[in-house]
């Protein structure tokens, strides 16, 4: 099997090289048979990488310790599910997963474009194959997944205990899917620059890819946060760690792109900017991988450190220089007649939204690399931690939230004062009322008050949007309200799906504010039968039970949780000890409700478990972070939903309504 895997990776590399040549030759000489041949090479390349993945999985599942990778990241006692996920638990395997996803996406893009975009697609495929060459080169020559052990050990070292968690089964694949699929818009952008076909063809070809990438970046970040929440045992989910930042930056840039691309689609402006953004998003995915693997910047998530840094950095610089060069080369052709009438317009809102998003992304980037700068310039090691990021990105986030409210309600081109008042009066009142209510409830921190007010304001603007839309349908098509709402979303899925995502962002934002500003913590040492209190909860230590397997020892404490004298739950935090690595770990117990999460860590045990120390966090509203994430996911699905039934529905609507009445003004009696 190892031989097969090695061979497959070598063939895949040759196929990637061939497909570049055939694509470029076929496109330049207008020889479609070469482009078709290149396409087949891409599919074969994907098949080869798939074989390599299957070979490594086979090695992991059969505990074939002749393979260095298996010996380093697995063991016979590792539960089967984690043998499977060990594919991305180490350096070589995770690069293999990355490459596999890349070849899959390249194949799908090749299939989608087999009859479309003859002038653009071959170059895009060549760029994708070029990226694949870099990764396949790494797998073939630098960090080989199929290297063999000189002496076959009887037992493997095992997977890092922190990675033996179910969120780790889904977080890396989601994040990698998001990272890697960002390569497709980049490749088409680069293809547009190379081929000189600078219309919005590249955008249309990759709109779904960009949303797909954004969707998985969102999920990847959320799953990672959830993993940190459950595994690191400090009651938080985000610590502005360099690796977290590396996953967050492409998300910010992709978000900026998804907004600014609307201006280009509608007004043919910002061509250079949009091309720059897809390039930046792709560059940041490489930068993220560079950070994670180079060891240049220390991080809690760097499970694998290696000498890959220089390779990634060189590739990153090559891509950046080549892409910037192309942009400059085409700058003249990219100029388009732009029109801009007023700062009180949706264009302006989008421009400032991009400024905020890129501003946050830059602040995060700057904070992430500043320790390196400090060491280079002053020779002093410093830390740029959460207080920095919270203080710098915090105010920008408020600006962004404000623009989220303004953008959707403000008209394109320009807005009159009276319209402004009419559109924003109700949401503004809602926002101010919320702020006053929060003040009356005893909240004093300016940030929290502003955040809650702005959140309410944005929800108000979205409500106004939905009400207008439903009103229009009810009025013009005489639909009952629920039908009108469903049809409104179904027939304008891009727009209203987008609003659902906005609601999700606000809900998640409220969760972040609640959990960041109102977390309380109690640390208590108690004997069996004794109780202690946190918030309204009484916790009684019932006792300890121990469990021993060949893989790990588990000591589980049972706690009775009651409120107002009534038992509401029994929770069981545990201390774990992984035998292979001789490493302790913790398993937190969480009781989650929309009001607050009760989060319990078993911090210590004395006297044969008769005395236990608990660290308990009461974190308000954190539930809403995950709920908001779910809403964002649902909204994205709505946005991506193929809008095929629209025509049939429209035909039906025409039968009911007189078209003539629809051409003119709506009859009086509206609002």
């Amino acid at each position, binding site marked *: 099997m190892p031989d097969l895997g090695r061979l497959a990776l070598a063939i895949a590399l040759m196929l990637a090289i061939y497909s570049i040549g055939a694509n470029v030759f076929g496109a330049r000489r207008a020889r479609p048979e070469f482009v078709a041949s290149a396409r087949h090479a891409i599919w074969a390349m994907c098949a080869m990488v798939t074989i390599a993945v299957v070979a490594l999985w086979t090695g992991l599942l059969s505990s074939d310790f002749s393979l260095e990778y298996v010996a380093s990241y697995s063991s016979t006692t590792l539960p089967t599910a984690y043998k499977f996920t060990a594919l991305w638990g180490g350096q070589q395997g995770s690069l293999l997963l990355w490459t596999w996803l890349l070849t899959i996406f390249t194949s799908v893009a090749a299939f989608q474009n087999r009859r479309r975009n003859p002038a653009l697609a071959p170059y895009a495929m060549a760029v994708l194959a070029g990226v694949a060459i870099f990764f396949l080169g790494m797998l073939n020559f630098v960090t080989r997944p199929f290297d063999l052990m000189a002496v076959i050990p009887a037992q493997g070292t095992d997977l890092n205990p922190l990675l033996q968690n179910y969120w780790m089964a889904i977080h890396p694949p989601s994040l990698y899917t998001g990272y890697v699929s960002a390569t497709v818009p980049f490749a088409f952008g680069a293809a547009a620059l190379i081929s000189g076909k600078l219309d919005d063809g590249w955008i249309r070809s990759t709109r779904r890819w960009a949303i797909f990438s954004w969707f998985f970046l969102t999920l990847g970040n959320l799953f990672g946060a959830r993993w940190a929440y459950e595994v690191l045992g400090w009651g938080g989910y985000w610590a502005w760690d360099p690796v977290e930042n590396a996953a967050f930056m492409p998300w910010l840039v992709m978000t900026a792109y998804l907004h600014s691309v609307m201006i280009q689609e509608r007004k043919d402006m910002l061509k250079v900017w949009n091309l720059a953004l897809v390039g930046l998003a792709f560059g940041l995915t490489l930068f993220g991988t560079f950070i994670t693997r180079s060891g240049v910047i220390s991080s809690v998530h760097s499970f694998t450190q290696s000498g890959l840094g220089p390779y990634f950095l060189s590739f990153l610089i090559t891509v950046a220089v080549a892409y910037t060069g192309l942009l400059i080369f085409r700058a003249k052709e990219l100029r388009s007649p732009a029109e801009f009438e007023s700062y009180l317009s949706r264009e302006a809102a989008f421009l400032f939204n991009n400024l905020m998003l890129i501003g946050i992304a830059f602040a995060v980037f700057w904070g992430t690399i500043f320790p390196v700068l400090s060491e280079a310039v002053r020779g002093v090691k410093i830390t740029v931690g959460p207080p920095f990021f919270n203080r710098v990105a915090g105010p920008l986030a408020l600006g962004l939230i404000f623009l989220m409210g303004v953008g959707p309600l403000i008209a394109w081109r320009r807005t*009159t004062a009276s319209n402004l008042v009419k559109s924003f009066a109700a949401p503004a009142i809602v926002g101010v009322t919320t702020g006053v209510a929060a003040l009356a409830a005893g909240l004093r921190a300016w940030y929290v008050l502003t955040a809650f007010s702005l959140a309410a304001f944005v929800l108000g603007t979205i409500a106004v949007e939905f009400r207008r839309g439903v009103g229009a349908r009810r009025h013009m098509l005489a639909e009952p309200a629920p039908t009108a709402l469903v049809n409104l979303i179904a027939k304008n899925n891009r727009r209203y799906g987008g609003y659902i995502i906005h609601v999700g962002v606000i809900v998640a934002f409220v969760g972040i504010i609640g959990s960041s500003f109102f977390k309380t913590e109690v640390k208590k040492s108690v004997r069996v039968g004794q109780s202690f209190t946190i918030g309204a909860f009484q916790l009684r230590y019932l006792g300890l039970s121990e469990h021993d397997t060949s893989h790990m020892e588990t000591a589980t404490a049972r706690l009775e949780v009651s409120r107002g004298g009534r038992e509401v739950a029994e929770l069981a935090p545990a201390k774990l000890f992984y035998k292979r690595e001789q490493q302790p770990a913790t398993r937190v117990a969480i009781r989650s409700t929309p009001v607050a999460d009760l989060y319990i860590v078993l911090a210590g045990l004395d006297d044969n478990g008769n005395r236990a120390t608990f660290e308990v966090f009461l974190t308000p509203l954190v539930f809403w972070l995950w709920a908001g994430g779910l809403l964002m996911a649902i909204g994205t699905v709505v946005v991506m939903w193929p809008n095929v039934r629209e025509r049939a529905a429209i035909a039906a609507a025409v039968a009911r309504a007189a078209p003539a009445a629809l051409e003119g003004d709506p009859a009086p009696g509206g609002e």
Partner: protein
Amino acid sequence: MIVRAKPAIPMRPMRAAHLACALAILVAASLGVPRALAGDRPSAEQVSQALTCQCGCGLTVANCNMPTCGFAVPTRHEIRRMIDQGKSQVEIISFYQRKYGEKVLSAPTTYGFNLLAWTTPFGALLLGGVLIVFTARRWRRAPDTPAPAPAPSDAEAAPFDPELRRKLAEDLRKGG
């Protein structure tokens, strides 16, 4: 009833200076917040948030709960003891800074080279804002700009979103 709006009055553009002011306020606010929070007797939470755990986790002393960490827990105890001895936040933090060097601080200091850490993001934002203002000005003056369309008045004052109405009407036409 349809409310008829007056003909549109073109809005005066927000000046770059306004933008600069707004950004300056943001900077000031972000730097000023922690000062405002500092009381007489420091809270152990505040102090331990200002320090980075040295176990390699990258979290603050307040947050690190790694089972393998040998730094955060004793340091938190030590901080509490120093607070009980009446030491101020500045004293405690500089004690750790002398002991472990600048890397123990969880955020850069606000003087010298480190000031760049704090100011550059806002500087970049300001630059971006100025760039938008200048680009917008150029776009407005651009000679190849088509003649401005008539001011939106009645259509936009209609009770329904004009864009939505247009799309709906268009859809119906296409379907028919």
